[in-house]
């Protein structure tokens, strides 16, 4: 088991009103899983993903990553995010002043790898994702699909146990969108890489081997 989230509760205060977004959501992710979480807009999909990624803290519930209980507020959360998790967002969030290679090197440098080793790994990953001709390009010199592939390479840089993706194709046109989905499927099959992907696109979600729907704050597996 890579990740286990049990009875996750989360609520927000909006003026005087308390909005309960998650009401006991539970999820287990095993090695090689390609999981999609769908649901209506504003149902709490992203909130759940950020809690799974230790970017937000649940009000209640337990989170276990790689067999260890972890609290997102603890100092260890940084290490878990760096070593065991990878993130892909709807927007690429690449650092504009760094080249594609440099961007992919970042998680490795945070982990403490030497610059040479990090550069070699970054180039291998970019090559694997078909970007060997774009290594020294800056983000604004890349197409939307290429930017998202660089972002995917960065998520994979430290060989994480799990990649969490929040609407990874939400900002792409259909052609680039299917290109990224293909990439994710290939990584899942060829490298046994686990993914948890949040998307509102039901059709795209069908490419996953497990699909969950978040409704009324609870996760339910489809099919």
């Amino acid at each position, binding site marked *: 088991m890579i990740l286990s989230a049990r009875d996750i509760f989360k609520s927000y205060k909006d003026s005087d009103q308390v909005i309960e977004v998650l009401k006991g959501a539970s999820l287990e992710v095993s090695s090689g899983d390609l999981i999609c979480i769908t649901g209506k807009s504003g149902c709490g999909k992203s909130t759940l993903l950020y809690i799974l990624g230790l*970017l*937000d803290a649940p009000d209640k519930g337990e989170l276990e990553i790689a067999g260890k209980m972890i609290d997102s507020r603890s100092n260890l959360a*940084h290490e878990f995010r760096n070593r065991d998790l990878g993130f892909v967002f*709807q927007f690429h969030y690449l650092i504009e002043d760094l080249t594609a290679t440099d961007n992919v090197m970042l998680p490795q440098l*945070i982990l403490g*790898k030497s610059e040479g080793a990090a550069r070699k790994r970054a180039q291998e990953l970019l090559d694997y994702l078909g970007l060997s001709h774009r290594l020294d390009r800056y983000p604004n010199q890349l197409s939307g699909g290429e930017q998202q592939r660089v972002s995917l390479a960065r998520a994979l840089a430290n060989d994480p146990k799990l990649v969490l993706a929040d609407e990874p194709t939400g900002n792409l046109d259909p052609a680039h969108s299917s290109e990224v989905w293909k990439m994710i499927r290939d990584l899942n099959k060829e490298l046994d890489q686990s993914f948890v992907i949040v998307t509102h696109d039901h059709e795209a979600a069908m490419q996953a081997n497990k699909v969950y729907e978040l409704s009324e704050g609870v996760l339910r597996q489809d099919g």
Partner: protein
Amino acid sequence: MNQLEAFFLKHYIKTPKRNLFRFSFVFMVLGIALSVAILSAGLNLFQGYESNLKRLLLDSFAHINISSIYRDYIDENSSDDILDIVFEKDGVRSAVPLLQHQLMAQVDGKVRAANLMAFKENDNTYYHEYISQGKNEITFGEIIVGHYLAEELGLGLGDEITLMYPRLDQISAFGLHSVTGNFKIVGIYRCGYYENDRSLVICDIDEARDLLNLPTGYTRIHVKLDKPDNAAYYGAEIASELNNRFSVIPWNYYAESLLRLVKMEKWLIYIVFSFLVLIAGINVISAVGTIILDKTDEIAILHTLGAKPKSIKKLFAYRVGIAAVIAVIIGQIFGLILSWLVEKQGIYKLKGEVYFIETLTFELSYMNLGIVFITATILIFICIMIPLRQIQKMQVMDIVRRNY
């Protein structure tokens, strides 16, 4: 420094155009450079003033002044004994007995106070190097006059001057009896120390004896040392060897308080001008705040990738810090140029009667350079760190959500 910080630091240095020479940095760099330039120039000029004043004081006055305690003169025998003791010391450059007295200088109804000096051996004195016009050798009937005294009396080389000494021992029903002597000006003395240039007159010792009615002996002995800073030590030794029969006063006794005052003023200037750097620091706070706002996405992604807030803060600190250090160095270079321009300009001169010297000179001191660099760097560093605290409080969730 971890790998991430080292990587970014290298990146900032390797691609300064992309990272440092940005519009948001321009006013920050300009503010720091200007304030540091003013601080540097202020210290350079005050350092120059302090050194110049000390040099002139030490050149114009005896390093150790030996005079009689009980009588108003030192007789010939005592003078020889004193010289024997003084010349036994290593580091004594010269020692010369002389007559020194306050009297009046007069020309065509214009009267000014004058400080008469007449040396036993003119060859062994130290005024020679400050003769700006004429000759430094004086014979009977000749005199050397201070530059401003000559100017105030409207005199030049070859003109005559009358020295007047009121004899207190010869009071009659008609008042004080004054002894006068007429001299031909053969030299103009100008050392740059205003008080000396305005009052000094140097004449032959025999003529001075006639004028002062002092047929034998000297009023004091001027001792010059190779290292004037040792004057207090040598003075105490000489006084002890003379069994405290004579008054032995090192130069520090007269001038130390003045030099301390100048030093204190220098540090006051330093404190006041440091506030300018602090004001420039407000620009830095604003620039860093703008950069943080501009780079919230980068902060969020670095946080997501597992970088600790402390590490992220350091990346920003390095980036702004490099620009700030460059600005401080530019400011110090500007400061040097500004000091040089002030020295070279001929429009503004110091008032000698107020500031003792007339010329503004600057002196480059490594200690001052270091102090300005450290002060400016620390103040700017504090100003950089204040807005960086925001990074710690940033919620990644909010930043990511904002873009959806």
